């Protein structure tokens, strides 16, 4: 049954007030963002649809969906957007609101970031540890299917199996990573 739209404008205004959300009213729904998105297969609603749903006032549906948490900030959508909207920032704005509302979906992207964070405690990335952590926390079978590639890299010494030496100032690097994690909750604002 058709529903009566209530509060559509308030949700748009809420997103527009969030840092990075200001250009939401300029979207022409062309879909180039979704067509360019590198992680779109994990999104429940592609980025264009997220914008459409915000305009339709679907607050609960948007915020409870893990979609925007899948953004890897590759900026392909931003480069191609014909209206200069910066969908990347817009999605971050939505995820910041969602985090504040208590939604913490564990999307592959978030897990990738967590794995990266955990494998950087020595101040530089330990790729093998990162991949291991990522596949263990998401899908071990994908990891296994990538073994031939991994072996090629390992046998050429491109991915050392042992963790790297601690670098000077590893504590500071760790602090930076912590700060980034904190900033995610506020949509990129420190």
């Amino acid at each position: 049954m058709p529903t009566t739209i209530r509060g559509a404008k308030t949700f748009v205004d809420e997103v527009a007030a969030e840092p990075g959300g200001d250009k939401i009213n300029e979207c022409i729904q062309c879909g180039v963002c979704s067509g360019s998105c590198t992680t779109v297969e994990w999104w429940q609603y592609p980025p264009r649809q997220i914008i459409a749903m915000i305009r339709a006032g679907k607050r609960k549906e948007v915020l409870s969906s893990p979609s925007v948490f899948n953004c890897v900030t590759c900026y392909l959508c931003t480069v191609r957007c014909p209206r200069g909207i910066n969908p990347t920032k817009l999605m971050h704005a939505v995820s910041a609101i969602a985090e504040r509302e208590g939604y913490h979906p564990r999307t592959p992207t978030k897990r990738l970031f967590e794995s990266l964070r955990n494998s950087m405690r020595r101040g530089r990335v330990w790729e093998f540890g990162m991949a291991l952590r990522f596949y263990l926390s998401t899908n071990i079978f994908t990891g296994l299917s990538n073994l031939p590639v991994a072996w090629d890299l390992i046998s050429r010494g491109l991915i050392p199996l042992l963790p790297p030496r601690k670098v000077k100032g590893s504590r500071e690097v760790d602090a930076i990573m912590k700060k980034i994690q904190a900033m995610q909750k506020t949509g990129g604002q420190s």
Partner: protein
Amino acid sequence: MDRKIGVYICHCGSNIAGTVDVGKVVEFARTLDSVVVAREYKFMCSDPGQSLIKQDIKELGLNRVVVASCSPHMHEATFRRAVQEAGLNPYLYEMANIREHAAWVTVDHDAATEKAKALVSAAVKRVYYQEPLEAREVPVNPATLIVGGGIAGIQAALEIAESGNMVYLVEREASIGGHMAQLDKTFPTLDCSACILTPKMTQAGSHPNIKLMTYSEIAEVSGFVGNFKVKIRKKARSVDLSKCTGCGVCQTKCPTKVNNIFDANLGKRKAIYTPFPQAVPNKPAIDREHCLWFTQGKCRVCEKFCEAKAIDYEQKDEIVEVEVGSVILATGYRVFDPTPVYQYGYGRLDNVITSMELERMVSSSGPTGGQILLKNTKEPHSIAIVHCVGSRDINFHEYCSRVCCMYSLKFSHLLREHLPKAEIYEFYIDIRSAGKGFEEFYNRVLKEGTIFYRGRPGEITDVAENKDEEGKLIVKFENSLIGERERLPVDMVILSCGLEAQTDALEVARKFTISCGSAGFFTERHPKLDPIATMTDGVFIVGCCQGPKDIPDTVAQASAAAARVLAMISKGKVATEATTAVIDEEKCSGCRICNNLCPYTAISFIEDKHVSRINEALCKGCGACVAACPSAAIKQKHFTSEQIMAEIEGALV
């Protein structure tokens, strides 16, 4: 004589009254020196508004009038006429622009009101010193210059030539015809482009009143409305048109092959070439950049085979000077080059082609003889057409190019005709089919089975992810109507490229002292009410040089411009500026600085008196000499020092 000034303040509906407190401005105006009456009205430019002024002039004996309303571009002429009808000299009227200069530029009511007061006060102080002036008339040269030999230029030329007046039609390519000659069929009626264009081309080529100047460009323009002097550079064609019979032997014998620009670089042509078989004039030109004789100093084969002895390697650029009364610019457009849209792979992926390339492919006189072929010379089974390439995109052109939706639909139809079994997909954001018969054509294409996907593709790639995609181009897009990201493998992708301004549009604009908008298209005098005239009297713009448009609109504009030109010719004279400069011979020291400065060569030197003198018939009142004169001997009528000082004083209330 006592000055009696009337001040009239316009509300312009809510345009001015919405921001400026008109009542306060009226109160203020009443306090100014010599102001006899100050009134306000909803629309001063309307009939009752004008009558108000006329009545006051008669009843109160006003001898100066100030109207505070919009820009002089809008209504200066209107109010000058009104005061003239009431028996006052039109130059005893002054306009204060409180709309564009006050009401529209701020939302601060108090600031707007204050500025409106300052502008009114400036105008009142200025008008006090204004003097009656008489406008003069000069004869109009009945010849017309048309720049650009596309459909717009041809149409305008024929209309004017038919009336018995002389037309110079200047085209920079070797043949007239323009982009329309490249098209196969035209939407929505599917008229054959060549069939409707070539008769007009031939007519233009043979008309006794049209002097065709192909392979030529505008070098220099001087003069003013009614009396332009234009220098045209006839580029060295290396072929003597008076001797050449157009037999075409030279083109068959020439050993040098170069990309054929007319065929969108799909086919080859020779270094000596006529752009296309129906060219007018159907005589070749030598492309000196590629000709072996000009690049390496050998060959001269064309000369050996030319029976008419028409080949002339020694030919040089030649400057021809013509005098015309008015100018029509019909310089057209350029097709957007999609190479910078990297994600669509043009130039990088085979079988991603532009709309113009397809246009030449479907043309039966094109490089493939009307066959749609992939790079491997096979026919495609599936074709994707991508709309809005280069248009509606702030990274390239923000505007909508207007014609792409319709020509893309036309492609769908033509491809269906050529390849009945092919799958055809259109990727669109919005279908813009606003025009007579356009929506009906859209319906027809829908019925024919073209599949429409709403979504601007993110990327076109040749990286296959599965067997079905191997050897194909994959369009990555979101079907935005169902919200799903999809991959569509196709054999061929057509990029519907937008229209953009000519690269040298700004240069042309400077030559004719007109202006270009931000997108590079020429700016019209008024976007609604005067779309073909420019701010320079006697210079008109028609067709795509003014903005993207389709053929019917272009033709309509061309005819409209022709009517405007013919109106000027039949009137036979134009009013010139009364605001000319005069030299006070008592003060002139005869230094002659002004003589060379004058862009209209209006100043001459009187030897025996040792002073300079201005020919008022030539003076346009630009003021260059006035500012330059070291002895302040030159006075500009209507812009005297005392008028300007009074205006400044008034503005500083």
